[in-house]
């Protein structure tokens, strides 16, 4: 009888020990519990990143930062590029074109030149003709892409360099990923 209770006791101890030992759902110290959603890197090949093209006006989907220069208005489409808008009449802004710039977040303009980040690269674009934007200069790896998304206290899939250049992050449903910040 005594033996049996010892066994039961040890058995319970093992189960409890195993649970706390291998429980992957235990959040890291100080971290909130995983909500079922995390950030996944959006990858592109170097070749894709290099393709800066002028396209027909596109719908606003996930607008990011904005920039104003004279009558022009620039709206970043997060990670995708920049909407060029004629804002001479603020009651009637007109989309002129969309400049596809993968990984774009930030921009600044002086005269006819638009300075933008293009993933890890820094590009100078000539926007004298907004329907035919030209790349004047590319400085590669001016903004080394961090291996984490631009948020704190979140879970994300760890970056795998072999998959390409990270040009953005998307929040999606996933199993709890390994990385957290």
């Amino acid at each position, binding site marked *: 009888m005594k033996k049996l209770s010892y066994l039961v006791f040890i058995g319970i101890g093992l189960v409890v020990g195993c649970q706390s030992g291998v429980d992957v759902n235990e959040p890291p110290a100080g971290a909130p519990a995983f909500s079922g959603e995390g950030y996944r890197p959006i990858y592109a090949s170097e070749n894709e990143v290099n393709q800066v093209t002028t396209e027909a006006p596109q719908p606003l989907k996930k607008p990011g930062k904005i920039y*104003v220069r004279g009558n022009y*208005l620039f709206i970043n489409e997060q990670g995708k590029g920049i909407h060029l808008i004629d804002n001479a009449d603020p009651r009637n802004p007109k989309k002129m074109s969309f400049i596809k710039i993968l990984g774009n977040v930030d921009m600044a303009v002086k005269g006819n030149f638009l300075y933008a980040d293009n993933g890890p690269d820094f590009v100078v674009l000539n926007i004298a003709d907004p329907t035919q934007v030209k790349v004047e200069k590319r400085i590669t790896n001016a903004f080394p892409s961090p291996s984490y998304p631009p948020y704190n206290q979140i879970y994300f899939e760890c970056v795998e360099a072999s998959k390409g250049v990270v040009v953005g992050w998307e929040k999606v449903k996933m199993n709890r990923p390994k990385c957290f910040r």
Partner: protein
Amino acid sequence: MKNFNLATLCALCFAFALGCATDKSADVNPNSQTGTGGSMARFAIVGDVLYCVLPDKLQVYSIANPTNPVSAKTIPLTVGLETIFPYKNALFIGANAGMYIFDNQQPDSPVLLSSYFHVQSCDPVVVQGNYAYVTLRGGSGCRRMATASTLDVVDVTDLKSPRLINSQTMESPYGLGVSGDQLFVCEGDRGMKIFDLADPKQPKLKHVIGDIKAYDVIPTSKSLLVTGDGGLIQYGLQEGGKLEVLSKLAIEP
């Protein structure tokens, strides 16, 4: 009072137009070569210099030859740099550990004057006159220690010794913009708050636009541009500080 506000605004516009070679508010002059970003911007141009705020350094490029940026200076700082706001002869750099103030009388060679540290947060900054307005956003997205969000007023009369003089609780503040006697603070999904700056040391809440999503705001002479998850909205400033919707560019999911 209305006339006084208008006069103040005009005086400010005039002052900005005069100072526009070195002033952030260059957009007030539609013929200006350089534009302006919102308070969340990481890039800013002053004269022939482009500043890029990287997470751990301030990268200074000379764009004297506009098609060939040349690295002029790299200034390493602590990690967590987020925003840049040039104002007069200074650069205000918001970081998630505080704010750095640089003298940039020589734009290609900024010199660190002071740093202002507070609890860790996200903090875009805008400046007008002797006061910097900083939003500190608490919550899981930003601040590790989930404390209250605030709108702080920092006296920067002496750029070498910034002083916190006012702090008020906010909900979830993001970008902000200042123009004349009005301060616009974006509150994310909770809309935009408009503060009266009759006393620039003590912003007084006078109006809330609750039915929009506001992430960043740029006041220009023609319109007030507000961006967020819903798209871009432009407002006209009417007499007495009232806002009228001029146009919307809505998102198309």
